């Protein structure tokens, strides 16, 4: 007998929650307990009184699994609402990465040139290194990192995906 993986599609979920201790563990734990994937997870409070947070989770699963994930999240007591941005319609998705590159000569020049192409900003520089700040969709960041590996990538810090529905209304 062999274990076979299931076909999966990528969904970006936006979860509005009460900002209380343990909420992140509750949500992350639900994913691990039920065998769901987390590709990326970001969280920060989003209201003036810091009482409410938005958690953005990028996950993969079959349509039935995605439906289950949403239903399971929705029944957690501190959860206000869960929005499947991927299913809802057009939305904007961004990630920020800080990318440290070290090198000299051609590598250094090439790194700067590529950073310009990707609209990455230099936020720290020494004689032999740069830290770039780059924002964009996950694919753009992936591509930028792939290129930086060629020219002396030292380390990288990524925020994970933040996403929001397009248009004037709050996502449902």
């Amino acid at each position, binding site marked *: *007998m062999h274990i076979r993986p299931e076909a999966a599609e990528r969904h970006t979920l936006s979860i509005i*929650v*009460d900002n209380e*201790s*343990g909420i992140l*563990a*509750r949500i992350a*734990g*639900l994913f691990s*307990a039920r065998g769901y994937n987390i590709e990326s997870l970001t969280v920060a409070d989003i209201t003036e009184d810091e009482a409410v947070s938005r958690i953005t989770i990028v996950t993969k699963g079959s349509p*039935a699994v995605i*439906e*289950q994930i949403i*239903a*399971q999240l*929705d*029944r*957690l*007591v*501190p*959860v*206000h609402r869960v929005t499947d941005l991927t299913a809802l319609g057009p939305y904007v998705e961004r990630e920020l990465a800080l990318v440290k590159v070290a090198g000299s000569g051609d590598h250094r020049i090439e790194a700067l040139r590529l950073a310009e192409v990707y609209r990455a900003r230099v936020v720290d520089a020494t004689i032999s290194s740069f830290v770039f700040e780059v924002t964009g969709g996950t694919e753009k960041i992936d591509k930028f990192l792939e290129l930086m590996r060629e020219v002396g990538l030292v380390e990288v810090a990524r925020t994970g995906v933040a996403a929001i529905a397009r248009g004037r209304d709050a996502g449902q």
Partner: protein
Amino acid sequence: MKDELSGADILVETLSALGVEIVFGYPGGAVLPIYDALFKQRKLRHILVRQEGGAAHAAEGYARSTGKPGVVLVTSGPGATNIVTGLADALMDSIPMVVITGQVPTHLIGTDAFQEADTVGITRHCTKHNYLVKDPARLAATLHEAFHIATSGRPGPVVIDLPKDVQIATAPWPADVDAAADPVVRVRPTYRPQEAADPALIEAAVEMLAAAERPILYTGGGIINSGPQASAALRQLQSLTGAPVTSTLMGLGAFPASHPDWLGMLGMHGTYEANLAMNEADLILALGARFDDRVTGRVDAFAPGAKKIHVDIDRSSINKVIRVDMGIVGDVGRVLDEMIRIWRERGHARVDQTDWQARIARWRAKDCLAVPPAPDAQAIMPQTAIRRLWEATHARRPIITTEVGQHQMWAAQHFGFEDPNRWLTSGGLGTMGYGLPAAIGAQLGDPDALVIDIAGEASIQMNSQEMATATQYRLPVKVFILNNEYMGMVRQWQELTYSSRYSESYSEALPDFVRLAEAYGWRGLRIDTLDQLDDGIAAMLDHPGPVMVDCRVTKLANCFPMIPSGAAHTDMILQANEVSGEMDDEARALV
């Protein structure tokens, strides 16, 4: 001018204001202030168990039989970790329960203090919700919210972790919580179980039911949880539609077993007629049931020709295991009431089910629960023991609890239940050791009831220390052990899937149960032969105090019918002689 009360006193006052009468618990260092507060009051009755796990199951038994939430009080560290099984059990079976755990003082949290455990972390995924309360001023409101969450929507266990310094510190009293106010208004807006279902869906469901030629009502524990009026509504809808009824393990008693349209339990150890009716139905109305793997068998072969309507208060239950044609989120009792109203308003008549009833009659004729012949004239078949127990007790409407294993399935098959809240068993989690403490809880909830734990000789040893609890509080519970000297269900699976290699499933070194009973001040009885069976049962019932009966049954009987794991409803094994060989790995993995 407000008074100040300690956290411990606020706890006692609030529990009492919430209508709590009984608290199951065990003291320890981190709950000493609460125990001192309990000592000084007469509103709450504390039941001292012998291990915290017993408190959790006793609270479950109390909750399941009375419909009221079970309340547990235990200390930090090992006290809290010992109730984890009970929490997981209550979560699976949707039992309302509120557990107060002591915690080390706030300033010691995180320092690996004596008897410190991360209770909130450990119980996060085996509770419906949990709290760490760090301020006594927050305690009353948290308790009100906890009780509301535990008892509403899909019920479940809630833990409140209370550090020792918070029990001692004071806060203004009465608190700003108005106990008379509607709890729904008070609790946080994020918690909003959907009790009223979409009327358009209910109407459509009624039309589907009215048009069905081969309908079946598949009912579950949700009907019991919804309250006795949901069972009454189920009976009413059934009499309007004439549809046959089957039930999960957890739903037994919602529909009377003596009714001619009762098919018996469905699933792995369900009846032939229930499983075949599910397989050939053209409409399945699932009511407060969750399509557990023990019910569905092989999912891709489950009820292939049926339209499926699923009514459940938990949205996540719908389409979790089986894709349904219509999901209705709402309280099953209210949905049933609406369905009855609409059925009547529209003047629907029963569809002619002559063909359907004829098929069912053919399946019934198999008599799948017929007791196989005993190996010798005086040997007791376990099924016979259960039937005789039923004959001797059913007029008294007993509350039956069970442990987990063969005896549990035999009890479900052969003990007919007529009413809800009389059948207490660990369904989802399958917790051995549940039955005795659950019986204690049920007896406390209804002191005049006849409460019998149908047990196995292996399971009963998992919580037999609770015999002392029954002794202390003079609870006349009866424990009826079907003793076959095996962990029978394990042995049965080994026989079916591992060529009878009985790895560690023999109950070696059993205690003398009669003398064990006597050691605890109980009456102990042994039944060895068939001609002793009725007298033994009568002697058990005659004794006014607790009794343990060691009923020696045939050692190698197996529980049939059975759908082997990974098989379809149509692949039932009816008799032991249909079993042969080994299962392949795919089937073994599907347990």
